[in-house]
């Protein structure tokens, strides 16, 4: 059998293969109806040691420059809030921590509740399962279907997401249920060897996104995309804070506000472009939540809803589209659950929300210290009388 891998210098024809323009290596398509021989592969006659060394140096220079750029921009190390990271926390419930206190909700629950402060206040560090840009209803339903979850549940309500059912990260639940062993290994490797050392490892800094958000000419009839930029920084157990740059960099903060304004003032998506459609979806989401809460309650799980603060145009929009009486109050009523609304508690008011939706890190610490005892009290009272007001 001929050698299957040979340099062009040492081929039987003395390397003519590379000298002859138009040379085509034969493939199975050239040999019908016969046994296919061992494939031939050639290595171009080049000094591959030098090529590789130079390529490595250039690669290191490019990557180093990229890393320095993002560190200067304010990038932080550890951790990426990936599907793998969420799945690792979700798995804790099935791996012996089914009786734990679990937080679900959207980015306000994720950014505004600080796990170390909660632990200090109550002695228990909750499992953080809230997800940015995502309604907690599918996660609530998933937990309701999991008999291993027997603990207590705080459900954050960001009206825009909860009552619309919008889920930017809807793939996280199927990911958790179908997570491959190789994906778990990949997450572990990333969390130990990549995320703690590289600031560029953040979705907002991905090369494709950076290119996409440059000031390209606008095609007539299209709108300039204005996707939500980075807002958070996370720890390994998904304890998450508002990214310091939003707090300290006025230009970045203005941009974040501009994105919210674009988003709030834009036309509603077709499934929600009439009040009737909005109302139908709201009813459906409350119905799903009520069913799931009833299921949880059957096995002794206690539930508290939590509405964290918003401000400025964001709060105005929420109050207009999802008035409290038609959304929040109805939710508590139909789920027969206790709830804590920031408007009802003086200790939950007067906080700084740089981009109208999330608290700064320091304010999140203060809010957590204030809200943890309220929630513990609500849990203590739940099962007796549903409460929506203090």
């Amino acid at each position: 059998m001929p050698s299957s891998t040979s340099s062009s210098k040492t081929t039987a024809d003395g390397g003519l293969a590379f000298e002859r323009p138009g040379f085509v290596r034969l493939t199975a398509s050239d040999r019908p109806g016969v046994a296919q021989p061992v494939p031939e592969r050639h290595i171009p006659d080049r000094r591959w040691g030098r090529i590789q060394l130079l390529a490595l140096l250039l690669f290191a220079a490019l990557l180093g420059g990229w890393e320095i750029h993002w560190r200067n921009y304010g990038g932080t190390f550890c951790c990426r809030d990936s599907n793998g990271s969420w799945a690792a926390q979700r798995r804790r419930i099935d791996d012996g921590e089914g009786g734990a206190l679990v937080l679900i909700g959207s980015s306000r629950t994720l950014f505004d509740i600080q796990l170390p402060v909660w632990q200090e206040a109550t002695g228990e560090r909750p499992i953080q399962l809230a997800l940015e840009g995502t309604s907690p209803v599918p996660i609530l339903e998933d937990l309701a279907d999991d008999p291993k979850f027997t603990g207590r549940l705080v459900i954050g309500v960001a009206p825009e997401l909860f009552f619309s059912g919008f889920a930017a990260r809807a793939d996280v639940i199927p990911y958790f249920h179908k997570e491959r062993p190789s994906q778990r290994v990949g997450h572990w490797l990333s969390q130990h060897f990549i995320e703690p050392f590289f600031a560029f490892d953040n979705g907002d800094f991905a090369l494709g996104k950076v290119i996409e958000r440059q000031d390209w000419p606008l095609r007539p009839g299209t709108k300039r995309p204005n996707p939500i930029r980075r807002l958070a920084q996370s720890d390994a157990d998904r304890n998450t804070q508002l990214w310091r740059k939003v707090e300290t960099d006025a230009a970045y903060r203005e941009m974040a506000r501009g994105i919210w304004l674009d988003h709030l003032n834009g036309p509603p998506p077709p499934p929600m472009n009439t009040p009737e459609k909005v109302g139908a979806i709201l009813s459906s989401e409350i119905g799903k939540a009520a069913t799931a809460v009833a299921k949880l309650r059957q096995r002794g799980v206690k539930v508290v809803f939590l509405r964290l603060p918003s401000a400025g145009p964001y709060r105005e929009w929420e109050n207009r589209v999802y008035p409290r009486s038609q959304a929040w109050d109805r939710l508590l009523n139909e789920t027969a659950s206790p709830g804590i609304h920031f408007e009802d508690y003086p200790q939950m008011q007067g906080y700084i929300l740089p981009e109208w939706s999330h608290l700064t890190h320091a304010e999140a610490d203060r809010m957590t210290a204030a809200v943890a005892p309220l929630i513990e009290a609500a849990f203590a009272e739940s099962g007796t009388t549903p409460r929506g007001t203090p």
Partner: protein
Amino acid sequence: MVFNSLAFIAFFAIVLVIHSLPLGWTNKKINLLLASYLFYAAWNPPFILLLWISTIVDWYAAQKLAHARRNASRHAWMLLSVIVNLGMLGYFKYGNFVLENFGMLVASFGIAYRPPHFDIVLPVGISFYTFATMSYTLDIYLRRAAPARNFLDYALFVTFFPHLVAGPIMRPTELVPQFETPRKATPEMLRFGLALMTLGLFQKVVLADTFLAPVVEAVYDRDRIAGALDAWMATLAFSGQIFCDFAGYSTTAIGVAMCLGFAMPDNFRFPYAAIGFIDFWRRWHITLSSWLRDYLYIPLGGNRHGEARTYLALMVTMLLGGLWHGANWTFVAWGGLHGVYLVTERKLRSWARGYRPGPAAMASMGLVTFALINVTWVFFRAKKFAIAWQILSGMFGAHPEAAPILSFMRIASVTLIVGGILCTHWALRNGTLEFAVGRTREILISGLLASMAFAVVAVQGEGNAFIYFQF
């Protein structure tokens, strides 16, 4: 495990180290076999049982077949192999599809029958490894190959991780002989293998996933009517995406095998420079098209029994080739359209015998071929016929009032990338990648490799599965 993942980088580094240890050749092969099972199990552990069933049945059938004295007995053992492999493939890949279509068929006769829907998960790579193991039995049946000398070489041929889940579909005569004698990559092979892996991952992670997939999804997966520009751009983007995704996988697989000292065949030969469809199918997914030719088209009679029979064999082969890609009539339509193209081309060739086109005519025919291939991609990509018709009608100007969908940047990136792919394919259409690299300045090769590796890291791919994993 997918090549574009951290888990694979760690896995491959460990395999390379173990393979370079001073161990006996048999031990090295055992290590490779165990590593290959680990590679497969890391995706979905229970399905490794199916891989073992396919491996053992074909080993046993081939042994019996090789030693059988009577033709009927040889025939029976061959059939056993084909039935077990196609049976597994049929159940896992086409079970629900057959039931649903049976339900629709009986409903058309007025019989109310709702078939049960089974929650069947498709084992990754089953279409590839069943074809590889079948080629082992069939080559022995057709007396083209002798059985492997030992089970280890045979099992490694089936399971060797670079080709296991998405090809290239290897034949036993291509790989088994490579396991018979000790092999170790030279430093040059290792370096060039790593360069090929970089190129393959760049095609997949950067071009296919980052720049082309979002364009395709914006038009094919949203409930919006596309005008001519958007429909064409999305379809061109898909032609680039499917090539970069699959050719990227094949190039990475060839590089991985080379780093271990093994040779794998080309699976693509600059297909978008094809002039005509006969030429296209000698350049696109070569290991599948040649498999279908050798084990389906030729046994069906090939071109040996007159024109009508040739066309029939061609159509059956292409329709089944389409169905191989997935349990959906849109894939059958894709295969059928290619069958029609091939039949038409054969007819045209027989009418225009003796015609020698000049360079301009060649280029024009190449462009027509590429445009018609894009029409077939619409059926391949669209999940339903309704979407396919909508896109196709958009491509031919039926929706002049449609609102624009794609941004300037998206259109520019498709033009640049697909234009670049077309130029590259035409520049290299009669050559090989190695031929081109052999004539490129070393400093430029280093710069390109560094840039591609940087882009692979900087785009922060999500480890998306390769498109062909679903087939």
